[in-house]
């Protein structure tokens, strides 16, 4: 009897211990170090607000945060539209369960392969002498190669959409699959047309999935640095990239202050999404 009462505690211990050691403690360390002082060779314990003051008072910071938010909004909007229609197609237009499963796997398998390689794979496509420019020039649409395709904001957004749309497809597909088909029948019997069924029945019921997908995409884009660094060729900035650069210069307290601000911003965005949509019943 007593064993079965303490069993859940024993079973939950490994997870708790790992998260305490590798999530809670590191974030506590970041908060602590964000108040430390540093010079060009080392960091030392202190309690100063200079890291925050310098971060907040610099116009570079503001521009970088605005640029990151710009990426977030664009990538979120594009992945939402693509993700919703892909999920919708799989859930409502594919009738055989096997076909549904196979096509769903086709959409999710790239998620399990390397992000870096998926980024590299755009080079022969978008480059100055890449496939797209060659094709357009052969077709006579352009006579100079388009320079903005690779190493630009366009490339950053394209690569992020490529990498992160799957995070939208999966949760939306899940909620769409759970919609009782009788509801749609009922709406149709009541005289609703396809558009009314979509806006009055399906989208409201898909909101939890949309919210979960949005949380994934927003947090992934807000914290991204590798896609921005690689696809913009070092020409664009993001908060994550700014942190990575500060880390490379061993300015750990500055990077930590940035990390705390970023974390607060991300939590505010997630909190905002959760305020609009209740996802509890999805979990």
């Amino acid at each position: 009897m007593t064993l079965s009462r303490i069993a859940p505690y024993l079973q939950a211990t490994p997870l708790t211990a790992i998260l305490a050691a590798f999530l809670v403690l590191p974030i506590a360390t970041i908060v602590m170090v964000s108040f430390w002082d540093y010079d060009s060779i080392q960091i030392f314990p202190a309690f100063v607000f200079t890291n925050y003051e310098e971060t907040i008072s610099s116009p570079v910071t503001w521009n970088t945060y605005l640029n990151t938010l710009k990426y977030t909004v664009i990538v979120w909007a594009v992945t939402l539209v693509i993700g919703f229609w892909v999920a919708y197609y799989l859930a409502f237009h594919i009738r055989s369960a096997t076909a549904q499963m196979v096509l769903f796997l086709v959409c999710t398998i790239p998620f399990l392969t390397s992000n870096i390689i998926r980024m590299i794979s755009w080079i022969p496509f978008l480059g100055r002498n890449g496939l797209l420019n060659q094709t357009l020039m052969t077709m006579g649409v352009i006579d100079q190669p388009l320079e903005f395709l690779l190493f630009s904001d366009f490339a950053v957004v394209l690569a992020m959409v490529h990498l992160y749309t799957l995070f939208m497809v999966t949760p939306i597909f899940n909620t769409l699959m759970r919609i009782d088909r009788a509801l749609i029948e009922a709406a149709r019997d009541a005289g609703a047309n396809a558009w009314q069924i979509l806006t009055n029945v399906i989208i409201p019921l898909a909101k939890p999935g949309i919210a979960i997908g949005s949380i994934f995409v927003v947090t992934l884009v807000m914290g991204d640095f590798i896609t921005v660094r690689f696809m913009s060729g070092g020409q664009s900035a993001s908060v994550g990239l700014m942190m990575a650069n500060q880390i490379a210069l061993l300015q750990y307290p500055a990077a930590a202050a940035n990390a705390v601000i970023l974390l607060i911003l991300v939590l505010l965005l997630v909190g905002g999404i959760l305020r609009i949509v209740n996802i509890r019943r999805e979990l």
Partner: protein
Amino acid sequence: MNSEKRGPGFYVLTAFFVLFVLFLYGPLTTIFILSFQGPNGGLTFPMNGTSLRWFQNLLFEQQAVGDFGGAFSRSLVLGLMTMLTTVVVSLLAGLAFRRRFVGSGPLFYLTIASLIVPSILISLGIGLAFNVFGLEPAWYSSAFGAHLTWTLPFGLLIMFAVFNRFNPAYEEAARDLGASPWQTFAHVVLPIILPSLIGVGLFGFTLSYDEFARTLMTSGSFNTLPLEIYGMTTNVTTPVLYALGTVTTVFSMAVILVALATIAVLRKRRARRIAG
């Protein structure tokens, strides 16, 4: 939607879906083709003949920079460590969450937080924590922990999905027949959830094998494969980069296919056993 005739919407969305799949797989296909570039070929089309030159260069010749073999074996071992730990810890936590216990709410939110906190924060935080405590970061300690913060939430969410659909009548029946809690688990629960555990393992392995941001500041003095590949992108200007991309992607795909095939076989076997 379920009416017999396909409306125009169906064809429009089919075209959209096909384009999406092309968008997902098209770029990967181009580097796959370009990795067979001839010995004098470059990083873009046209193909300058075909050869296995770049695979040869990757696998058998000393690279100017980096250590592909060492990075690959480190990533492989780290992936397996992460996989095993993710399966065991998610399973245990999934079992724990089937009952009420004090602190289950906070633990759940902590797990979700682990998914939401940007990777670079985890990377920086673990790097700093090791620094503050005077520990030397290494791929098998700090990077291992960093990967777990990413794989465990996925593992736990999959276990939630599994146990939400799990019928407790099977366990009750086993108990009524006199099975001990351990026997019930080993002979009833485990076989039923085994396919899902393989799914958890697949996530654990592949997410770790491909992880970049969380490894960046936690891997210590030796690179894992994604770090090695990233390093190559700034130094290497020959198709050997694509050969590396092709080799690692083929490896990932093979792992995924083996896992999916195992799940399919287990499902089929169970269906046959129930029918027979």
